């Protein structure tokens, strides 16, 4: 009985693996993740600039670019999975 229960669950899993819903839910989170990563890097860069009193906020600029690169890298990595 337990075995068959497990089996039917496995079947459910296999059947649902292809549903577009799961991938949809996965992708909606990615955009937010990208935003979050860029925001955190920009914030860190801004704080570093503030701390050292830079006239030109080059650390912010570099951190933003780095954040964009990393978030794109992260998305490509997730898409490959």
């Amino acid at each position, binding site marked *: 009985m337990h075995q068959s229960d497990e089996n039917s669950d*496995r079947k459910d899993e296999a059947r649902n693996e292809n549903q577009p819903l799961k991938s949809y839910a996965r992708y909606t989170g990615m955009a*937010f993740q990208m935003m979050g990563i860029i925001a*955190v890097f920009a914030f860190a860069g801004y704080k570093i600039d503030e701390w050292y009193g830079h006239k030109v906020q080059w650390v912010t600029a570099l951190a933003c670019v780095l954040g964009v690169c990393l978030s794109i890298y992260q998305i490509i*990595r997730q898409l490959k999975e």
Partner: protein
Amino acid sequence: MDLSHIFNSKKIFRISFYAVLFSFLSFAAFSEEHAAADTSHAAATEVHAEPKEKDEDISKVILHHIADSHEWHFFGHVALPLPVILWTDNGLVTFMSDKFGHNDHGTELIDADGTGLVNYHGKFYYPAESKSADGTYISHDSKGEITNGKPLDISITKNVVSLLISVVILLVVFIGIANAYKKREGKAPKGMQSILEPIILFVRDDIAKPQLGHKYRGFMPYLLTVFFFVWLNNLMGLVPFFPGGANLTGNIAVTMMLALCTFVLTTVNGNKNYWGHVFTPHVPWWLYPLMIPVEIVGLFVKPVALMIRLFANITAGHILILSLISLIFILKSVFVAGIAIPFVLFISVIELVVGFIQAFIFTILSALFIGMAVEESHAEH
């Protein structure tokens, strides 16, 4: 060339309907822009004082309607007073919200058991030493931020009452259903049971099982609770009169607590595989200093996205409906109602669907995040 499809009356109706919709929307946007321009103009020259006040009034009314409140307004001057509970410098202070009248302009001092307070836009502050230039006991700094101290407000507000009502409804309905399943075991469902059984099964088969696999059983209570809680409160927020209309799921504190529950569940249930992905991601080792922070940000971004999505969707819907009604007052013509009210009905029906979809999305994303945390490692890695 067969052009008959263009003259299909149904299609013409649909096209004209959308044409009207979009022209109307752009008109609304235009009038808003116009109003904004008016406001800045008036602020600059202080000549057009009247339209400025009018437009500000309407946006204030809209924001007041979607905000939490210390009383439950019914109509006209009829409102249900709710208890105010404040933790002040002098300890606990409690009174009913109508005890000191309805002045929320910060111009009147309140003496609550020896603690001086002032009500400014529905929030309680400690009054400033003396009245400021605008006649209030509220002082602002150069950026316009309020500098008055504030007691800790743990009042039973409108949203809290709405929350308690929804909890009672959910308990009554679902304990009733649970008892019915016990009593009528093996028989066909009856009454409320037969209404809600398909939805409960929908949560199980379409949300929990695909995301969680064979581990779904342990998370069903949480997923079902979140789904029905969000759905019921979305719907109650759309009812314009008591006991609805409290906009509970459009309050970011409520959605934050819901998202926090999901976050705690994922963090507590995360297995070796899940934390392995965070602290030893599959990247070259020299990228670790960059990718580990990225993965950690990802942990926190997921619940934040969950929080903002629900809050923004429900708030946007409420503002849209209120704005469409406000058009009647902005354009100062009763005939606008002929267009505005059908649109309000149209948007309201959409909001009924949005209420369900948002509850569904919140639940499925919660299930997905939990599913990622409890997932066994794949053999192919």
